[in-house]
Structure formats: C-alpha cells, structure tokens
C-alpha cells in the first residue's frame, strides 16, 4: 500500500516544493512586508517633508527624531474600534477596504526590483499592472457608496471620474514607450534602456505620466476625492480603525507602484553603476516619491472643472501627439 501512495505523495510534495511555488510564497511574504514597511516609512517621510517645507521639526517625541511615530499611529489604529454606522450597506462596507488593497498586491508580481528579483516576469507585465491598479477605484466607489453618506458618495464619484479621465493619458503615454520597446515585458523594457534612459528620449511622456499618475493616486494637488475642506474625508469618512488604515495603506502602496512603473519605463529600472540593482531601483522610486510628497506643499488643489480640463483638453491631446510623433519616428528609423 505504502509503495503505491509514496510516488503520488512525492509528486505532490515535489509540486508544492517546486521553484515556482516557492518563489510565489516567498514573494508574497516579502511583498506584504514591503507594503507595510513602505507605508510606515512613507508616513514618516510625509510628516517630515511636510514639517520641513514649513520649517518645523515635525514629530520629535517618539524615538530618535520621532521615527517611531508612524508605528505608534499604526498601533493606535489597530486598537481602535471598528465603527459601523447603522445605515451603511454592511457587506459592501466591510469588503471595500479589501477591494482597494488586494489588486495592489497582485501588481507586485511583475515589478522588477532587480535583474532576477522579480516574482514572475510575465509577457503582459505592464498590462497586468495597469489593469489591476485600475481596480483600486472600484474599491473606492464601493466604499463611498456603501457608507450611505453624501460626502462619501461625492468623494467616490469624483474619484471615479478622475481615475477614468487620467487612466487614458497614462495608457497613451505608456503606449509610446511600448512602441519603442515592442514589448510589454518589464525585463525587456529595462533591457531596451541599455544605452539611454527613456526619460531622455521621451521627456514629454515622462512628465505626462508623472502628472497623470499623481492624479491617479489621489495625491495633492489632485486629491479631489478626499478634499478635506469640501468633503470631510471623502470616500473614507465613515471608516475607522484598521479599515481606515487599509485605505491609507492602499494610497501609499499605490504611490510606490506608480513610482516603480515610472522607474521601469523611464529611469532604466534597476540599472545603475556600482550599487546593486535593487538598491538603485529603490533609490529611484523614493526619489520620485519625494517629488510627489513635496508637490503636496507646492501646488494648490485643482478645482473639479480644472481637473477635468487638464485631463481631457491638455493631457490627452498631448499624449496623442506624443504617440503619433513616436510612431512616425520609429517608422522612419526602421
């Protein structure tokens, strides 16, 4: 009997211990750790950048120069009661934070941290990132709708119209890069930047992507969905405790993903002298995020009609022109 079972068991074990499954499991653990550490680090950076732009010291009390402040905030949020108002649509209300954060986890599959440090180098890598990070907005809409609160609903509606508007210029600018690389595979896009980074070849696309992706992550100056002066806190007004923290986590993770995609598309990914690849990748990502953080204290919030004007009348035409010019040049070079 045992002789019959053993090969099956062995195959079963061999499957679960195969390289692919191991990579997936280890990758998932690393990604979850990275998301947490990244969010905590970014909250600290946000507080400190905000403070130093205004020439304040920022948090100074918890730990050396207040570096434990975001950890303490996370502990506070963990300990808080999960308030569910009586009028909310309960199942949707509970599931919304998960819808916001889960697609973002998936996108980490194809982010190339180093030459070999990538969970799965899919052929459709770029497409996967954009399709899953677009799901983020569904979570926001569900959360705002389920809250049964006019501020939340308005915030959610604004978020949807904003994300739909800015998804288009993002995809068109990314297309102009894809025309040059002939590939959606992350490793091939980086390989195509062997000699020169695409930010030099495609400066307009880089700027357009940067602005549109800031809008996509609902960061200031495009934080219309959660404009606190107008909408209390927008789509997450009704959320408390860890559910609120998940929305927060999603926002910072989204920032990381957007910056990682920018790094891959325009800054040569993990390429760089002396230092190992992953370190170069993280340096580039956080340098970009720094600009996003400073933008919050530099530019005033756009009015809603200005936001739409910028997307439909400026960014989409510019992206189209950029795409056509890129296509023409590529055809002529061939």
């Amino acid at each position, binding site marked *: 009997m045992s002789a019959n079972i053993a090969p099956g068991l062995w195959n079963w074990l061999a499957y679960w211990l195969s390289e692919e499954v191991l990579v997936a499991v280890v990758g998932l653990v690393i990604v979850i750790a990275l998301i947490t550490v990244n969010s905590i680090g970014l909250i600290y950076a946000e507080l400190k950048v905000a403070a*130093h732009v*205004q*020439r*304040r010291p920022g948090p100074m009390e918890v730990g050396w120069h207040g570096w434990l402040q975001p950890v303490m905030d996370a502990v506070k949020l963990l300990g808080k009661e999960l308030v569910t108002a009586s009028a909310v649509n309960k199942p949707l209300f509970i599931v919304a934070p998960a819808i916001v954060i889960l697609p973002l986890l998936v996108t980490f599959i194809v982010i190339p941290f180093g030459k070999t440090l990538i969970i799965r180098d899919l052929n459709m890598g770029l497409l996967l990132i954009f399709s899953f990070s677009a799901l983020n907005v569904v979570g926001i809409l569900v959360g705002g709708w389920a809250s049964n609160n006019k501020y939340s609903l308005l915030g959610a509606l604004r978020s949807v119209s904003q994300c739909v508007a800015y998804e288009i210029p993002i995809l068109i600018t990314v297309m102009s890069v894809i025309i040059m690389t002939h590939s959606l595979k992350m490793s091939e896009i980086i390989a195509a930047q062997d000699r020169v980074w695409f930010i030099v070849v495609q400066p307009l696309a880089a700027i357009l992507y940067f*602005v549109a992706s800031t809008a996509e992550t609902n960061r200031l100056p495009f934080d219309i969905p959660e404009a606190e002066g107008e909408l209390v806190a927008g789509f997450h007004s009704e959320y408390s405790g860890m559910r609120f923290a998940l929305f927060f986590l999603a926002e910072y993770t989204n920032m990381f993903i957007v910056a990682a995609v920018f790094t891959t598309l325009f800054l040569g990914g993990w390429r760089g002298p002396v230092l190992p690849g992953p370190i170069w990748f993280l340096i580039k990502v956080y340098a970009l995020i720094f*600009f996003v953080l400073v*933008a919050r*204290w530099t*530019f005033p919030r756009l009015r809603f009609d200005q936001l739409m004007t910028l997307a439909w009348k*400026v960014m989409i035409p510019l992206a189209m022109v950029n795409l056509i010019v890129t296509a023409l040049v590529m055809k002529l070079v061939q």
Partner: protein
Amino acid sequence: MGLLRYIGKIVSGAWTIVLGYTVTIPEIFRPIKTVQYPREKLTMDPAYRGHIELAMLPGKDGHLCVACGTCVRACPSHVIKVQGVKPGAMGAKAGVSFLIDFSRCSLCSLCVDVCPMNALRHSMEYDLAYYSRWDSVIDLIARFKEQQERG
C-alpha cells in the same frame, strides 16, 4: 492663433511646476524656525506685555508702591486689590498687599500708565495657563520679594 495661445498656456503651466519646486525644495534644507515648547523656551522681547508686576529699580531696596489706589480705580475690570500701611506719623504710606486676579485682566496697561510712582510694569511671563481660576490670583508683593532674593 488659438492653437498658439493653447500651446503657450501649456508651456507656462509646465513652467510653474518647475517654479513651484524651486520655491519649496530649498525650503526643506533651511534651518528650522520653530521652538519645541516645553523643552526650549523663547526669550521675550522687552516690549512684551505679560501680567503686571512691581518694578524693581537699581539702587532701591523696596518697591515704589504707596498704595494710593489710582490703579485700582483706573482698572476697567477690577483686577487689582491694594492695601497699604502708614508706618509712622511722618513716614509715607507703603503697599503691603498687592493682589491681581489675572483671569479678568485684559492687559490694557491702564494701571501702568496711571501709576504716579511708576511702580508698575509688565512682566515677561507668557505661559499663563492655570488649572484653577484661583491659581490666576497673583500676589505681587510675594513675587517682588522672590525676585529680590534671586537678584
């Protein structure tokens, strides 16, 4: 023409992105202006108006208050209470009890202006928050003596 204006608007708009960053990014690396209050404290400007106190003059032993009561009458919110004692038949009257209730004071400075002996001045105290309203009653004579001992 319209197209040129459209492009010009975009270019000037893009330029403001650069301009905005040149304003805020250098600001990050400039020294910090604020003071971490309970750990460090600011030294107040001489023109600062805290609550009133009895003026200390170089070369004079005691305060100058003669308990004439002018400040008591001048005060619009009845903050001040003064009592004086005349030591002998020939001596001048001197204030022995000078209490103010700071919770009612609006720092109008009328008492300082009106004092015929220039015995009053504003102190440099600025952390004037109390746990009880009785804490806001300040004994200026005791304060004066304490200041004298410290020198």
